[in-house]
């Protein structure tokens, strides 16, 4: 009987040094949920301030800080890590791998994200958070000290994100189980491929843009100094070359989760698998050529606007393919409405609303009215909250039993679902109208008698519903850990490989590497009347990576260096990079051959030279 990866006694050291993809996924998850709560609190503050006209709950500067950090936190420190949590948890299991390709790098990626997020958020206590919006347009951003925290925090966490993306891609390319061809991979794995590619090619321009901002603020560069011949529109372009794919790299994994969950709850094969894969790749591809639709009002001229407008509309085509494929997966199936199912199903209309307003925004001439108003806020919150967040909740209820071996409470889950659904529609639907009624975005307050009072009040009430829903989720998690129902191996009668192994899985996931004979391999074996997968190898000892504290210390070094830059202390910079450099040096001169584990989990040999 195999022991689970969670069976080891809890110790902090174990979690700090872990290179197990499941544990790193869990670290990502709880860090992500923490920042989700922080970002949610910031959202609540925003909505409280905007509940009444000329409210003085927050002043302009504080509001701008809270608003900036809400966007930054939600996108970089909540949504991204939460999706990374799922990728870490699920992707190796779905492709029949025992770990990711670079476990050390995986850990490093997490700790870089962790310290980057900490650095940016520490600005609240160190003289003010960034306040130029999550876009931090130059030249406005150059006026604020908080921008330094924004730049360095994102630089550090961004480096971690790029590492993780490379790691996932390499894992998927080199570690698939025999028979798991590219066109047999589950949709979530596919979306991980495309999202990782987007990270690689989109986060790098962000790194570049942040460097420009950093040099301008710290070393007096002249990129954005108009008097010296600089150009501020350059930053907008580079930022949105990153910024638009950023949205897709968040929404594609969400699509992946929904595809897997809908197929499972409908007990039916995903309708049009090939066109789904095609659509995923196509969305990623087109996503790179539409960035300027965020800049229709910048004054690029009618030709550029038209080209980018039409290119943007084209995104609607592959997205439409996906929506219809999901619906036709349900049609003819037996749809189970558990909590995961409810979230997955309600994802469809919410996302459709976000999608159609997206096409409306793509109409560049009309966008002169929509741009930078609450209409845009409503649009992207339908995509992000209605789409990504609901997908995250769906994925959470769906995969929780696999990862933690316990079922999340369904009653609490359903309460949460309804509260969230009502709250989110209440908050954001009305904002479409607010935008058309002339309310610009990022305003810390508004005058009475402009016809916006009721709508804003309604919107704020909705925010409280969502808050209640998230509190219920936290309660659910606590209750489940305390006395949750134990999960069986395959609670949803699943289709993909992760359901063919115990819940929670053993440290090495697969005692023997399975052979994949079809799409939905586990379903296929079940339909053949098999109780387990076919195996590609006999039971033998398994090679696993060694845990290491170095990644954490290495990331901590960059954290110190970050403060060094912010406070213009060369000592801090050298100290920080010194720590990182020493870690890199130790890592490169010390041979790490990993360890061998026996599938029974009885016997561990350290430092065995495994090959050659």
């Amino acid at each position: 009987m195999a022991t689970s990866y969670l069976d080891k006694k809890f110790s902090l050291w174990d979690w700090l040094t872990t290179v197990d993809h499941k544990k790193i996924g869990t670290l990502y998850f709880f860090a992500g949920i923490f920042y989700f709560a922080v970002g949610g609190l910031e959202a609540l503050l925003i909505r409280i301030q905007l509940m009444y006209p000329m409210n003085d709950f927050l002043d302009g500067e504080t509001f701008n800080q809270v608003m900036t950090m809400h966007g930054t936190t939600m996108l970089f420190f909540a949504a991204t890590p939460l999706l990374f949590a799922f990728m870490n948890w699920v992707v190796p299991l779905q492709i029949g791998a025992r770990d990711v390709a670079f476990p050390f790098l995986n850990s490093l990626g997490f700790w870089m994200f962790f310290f980057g997020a900490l650095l940016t958020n520490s600005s609240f206590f160190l003289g003010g958070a960034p306040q130029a919006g999550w876009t931090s347009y130059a030249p406005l951003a150059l006026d604020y000290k908080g921008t330094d925290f924004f730049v360095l925090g994102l630089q550090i966490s961004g480096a971690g994100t790029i590492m993780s993306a490379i790691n996932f891609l390499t894992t998927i390319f080199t570690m698939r189980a025999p028979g798991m061809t590219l066109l047999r991979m589950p949709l979530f794995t596919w979306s991980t491929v495309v999202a990782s590619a987007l990270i690689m090619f989109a986060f790098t321009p962000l790194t570049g843009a942040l460097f420009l901002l950093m040099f301008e603020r710290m070393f007096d560069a002249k990129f954005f100094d108009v008097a010296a011949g600089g150009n501020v529109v350059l930053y907008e372009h580079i930022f949105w070359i990153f910024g638009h794919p950023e949205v897709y790299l968040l929404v594609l994994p969400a699509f992946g989760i929904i595809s897997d969950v809908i197929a499972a709850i409908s007990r039916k094969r995903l309708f049009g698998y090939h066109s789904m894969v095609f659509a995923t790749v196509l969305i990623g591809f087109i996503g790179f050529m539409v960035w300027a639709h965020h800049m229709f009002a910048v004054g690029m001229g009618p030709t550029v606007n038209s080209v980018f407008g039409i290119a943007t509309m084209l995104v609607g085509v592959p997205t439409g393919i996906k929506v219809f494929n999901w619906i036709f997966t349900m049609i003819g199936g037996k749809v189970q409405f558990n909590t995961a199912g409810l979230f997955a199903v309600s994802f469809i209309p919410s996302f459709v609303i976000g999608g159609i307003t997206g096409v409306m925004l793509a109409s560049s001439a009309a966008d002169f009215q929509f741009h930078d108003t609450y209409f845009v806020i409503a649009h992207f919150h339908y995509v992000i909250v209605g789409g990504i967040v609901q997908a995250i909740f769906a994925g959470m209820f769906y995969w929780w039993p696999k990862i933690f071996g316990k079922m999340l409470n369904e009653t609490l889950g359903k309460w949460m679902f309804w509260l969230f659904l009502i709250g989110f529609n209440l908050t954001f639907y009305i904002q479409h109208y607010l935008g058309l009624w002339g309310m610009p975005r990022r305003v810390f307050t508004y005058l009475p008698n402009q016809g916006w009072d009721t709508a804003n009040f309604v919107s704020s009430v909705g925010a409280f519903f969502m808050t209640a829903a998230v509190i219920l989720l936290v309660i659910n998690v606590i209750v489940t850990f305390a006395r949750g129902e134990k999960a069986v191996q395959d609670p949803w009668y699943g289709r993909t490989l992760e359901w063919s192994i115990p819940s929670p899985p053993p440290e090495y996931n697969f005692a023997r590497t399975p052979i994949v004979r079809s799409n939905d391999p586990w379903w296929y074996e079940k339909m053949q009347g098999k109780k387990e997968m076919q195996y590609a190898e006999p039971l033998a000892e398994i090679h696993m990576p060694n845990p290491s504290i170095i990644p954490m210390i290495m990331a901590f070094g960059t954290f110190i260096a970050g403060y060094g830059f912010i406070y213009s202390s060369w000592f801090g910079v050298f100290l920080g990079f010194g720590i990182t450099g020493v870690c890199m040096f130790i890592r490169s001169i010390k041979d790490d051959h990993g360890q061998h584990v026996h599938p029974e989990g009885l016997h561990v040999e350290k430092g065995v030279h495994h090959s050659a």
Partner: protein
Amino acid sequence: MSTLDFKANGLPAHPEKATQEGRAKLVGFWLYMSAEAVLFATFFGTFMTFRNSVNGGPTGAELFAIPMVFTATAILLVSSLTSVFAIMAMQRNLASKMRFWFAVTVLLGASFLGLEVYEFVEYVHEGHTFTSSPFGSSFYTLVGFHGAHVLFGVLWISTLLLRNINRPIDTYVAPKYYVASLYWHFVDLVWVFIFTIVYLFGMVG
């Protein structure tokens, strides 16, 4: 298939790809390079935007001189060739030959850096500094960023050589050498674009 598909003293023909870890390392490194290419592109783009925004300072045509740029280019090209020789030696399990060629590569890299430092000092004297104009800022960002890559490559290969000075080539270290040489080629490749876009374009005006 190729003349190198033989086992040299028990080493596989492609020791860098003999293990799963080695293969993963190679794929991962290629991905890293493709991402890095986009980062360089950002700085190239920035430079292209500002290549004529000299803010009253010296222009590229006034600053750049063919002999210096050509020397730098030749050094990097030769160093790329020597690193190819090193990898060929590695694949034939000729450890000392490999070390020799890598050492030559490191020396060439270091002399390139020396030349670059000299060049920057010249420019600063002529009033072309990081803060003098958008042209200056973007020039030093791009070329300096490349220079930092060369420096990192020199340190990386040196560390590899020193760490494994007494160690025969095996499937554990082979991917490390191979990846380091790929990195070196990449740095050389970026330079091809730098001398074209920064220097030659700059001289044309």
